[in-house]
């Protein structure tokens, strides 16, 4: 009876611990995800890789040989994180610049295995979703209400960050539009100038040419 209980509990833990979303990639394929985040925001990435097993036609729950290379780049294309992890991993980083953060994953397998499929379970949590409230409640001994207020504060914080980021993006957008506007204006002037110069040069050149040939 005891062993059954243990088994069921283990199953429960395993199922609950499983990450929800998954997708398939070829072993040598590279898959990138983009998270647009404000600055000073925590991003939590959880993943688990399973290798396709042709013998059983399913996916092996644990593939010790497979490692995942995870690379995170910020909006300036600067590498924040680049490491090889095992087949299961938990990565978290804090953004220092606002913008699109690109998270790329590819397995460290050699071409020898290429053609086989990988199943990648992935979970990405951003901002206040990445906070583990159970942990906080336990550590800081907060009451239920205090914990709720804590969550509200985190959320408001996130909203404020997002708004700051929005302001920043709006500024960039405006700069782009203004730049387009002025470029169009200057170019139309430049085009007129080029046309006039070209016309004058053509006239002069042909005139001197005809005079030299004594045609005029």
């Amino acid at each position: 009876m005891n062993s059954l209980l243990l088994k069921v509990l283990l199953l429960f833990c395993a199922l609950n611990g499983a990450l929800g979303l998954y997708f398939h990639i070829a072993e040598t394929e590279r898959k990138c995800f983009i998270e647009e985040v404000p600055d000073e925001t925590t991003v939590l990435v959880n993943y688990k890789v399973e290798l396709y097993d042709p013998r059983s036609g399913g996916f092996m729950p644990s593939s010790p040989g497979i490692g995942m290379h995870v690379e995170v780049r910020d909006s300036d294309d600067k590498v924040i994180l680049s490491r090889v992890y095992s087949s299961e991993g938990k990565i978290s980083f804090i953004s220092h610049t606002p913008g699109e953060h690109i998270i790329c994953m590819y397995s460290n397998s050699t071409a020898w295995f290429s053609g086989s499929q990988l199943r990648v379970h992935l979970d990405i949590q951003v901002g206040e979703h990445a906070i583990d409230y159970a942990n906080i409640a336990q550590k800081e001994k907060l009451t239920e209400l205090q914990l709720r207020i804590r969550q509200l504060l985190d959320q408001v914080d996130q909203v404020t960050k997002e708004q700051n980021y929005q302001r920043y993006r709006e500024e960039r957008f405006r700069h782009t539009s203004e730049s387009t506007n002025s470029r169009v204006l200057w170019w139309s002037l430049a085009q007129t100038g080029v046309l006039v110069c070209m016309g004058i040069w053509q006239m002069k050149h042909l005139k001197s040419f005809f005079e030299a040939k004594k045609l005029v």
Partner: protein
Amino acid sequence: MTKKLLNSAVFIIFFVGFVNSVEFTFDLADNAEDCFYEEVRKNQSASLEFQVSAGGQLDVDVSLKDPQNRVIYTQERATFDSHQFVAESTGIYAACFSNKFSSFSHKLVYVDFQVGEEAALPGIDEHATVLTQMESSSQTIHKSLNQILDAQTHHRLRESQGRKQAENLNERVMEWSLFETFCMCLIGAFQVIIVRNFFRERKPSQYRRL
């Protein structure tokens, strides 16, 4: 008997505890189809939201399939939409994004796949006592803030759509103006050469005939 009881008890816990929500943006290559799978339990509500934020005509084909591989929702060449459904059976649901119709433009697609309701805070909602006013109002604030965050995400995506288009336009104006200036100079020089050619002295051999 005990086994059954135990099993059902565990499954009840499992039902309550099973919650998942993930949002991300990915790059959909031209002529490609990307699928994402998620397990949904029976009678659990789930929602799929997507938005194309850059690339081509900002359109993508979307289909959502249930565990029996039946299509329960499909959109062709859509820019953004959201779909909510209640799972009819437990199993793997697949959300597929296809760019097969486009052979040269790749797309950036934002996806938000939510399964189940938001997980309760530990300690809260576990006891069945009536909530105090403080508790219920804090819960209301929490829900409103969630809505605000969702609205912000939506807004951010629309904004990035506009911004990417504007940046693209800026670049294209720049490239086109350089190209056209180059063309004008070339055509100008070419015209002169042609006109000169009209009046070029004929070779002596051609004069002899006259």
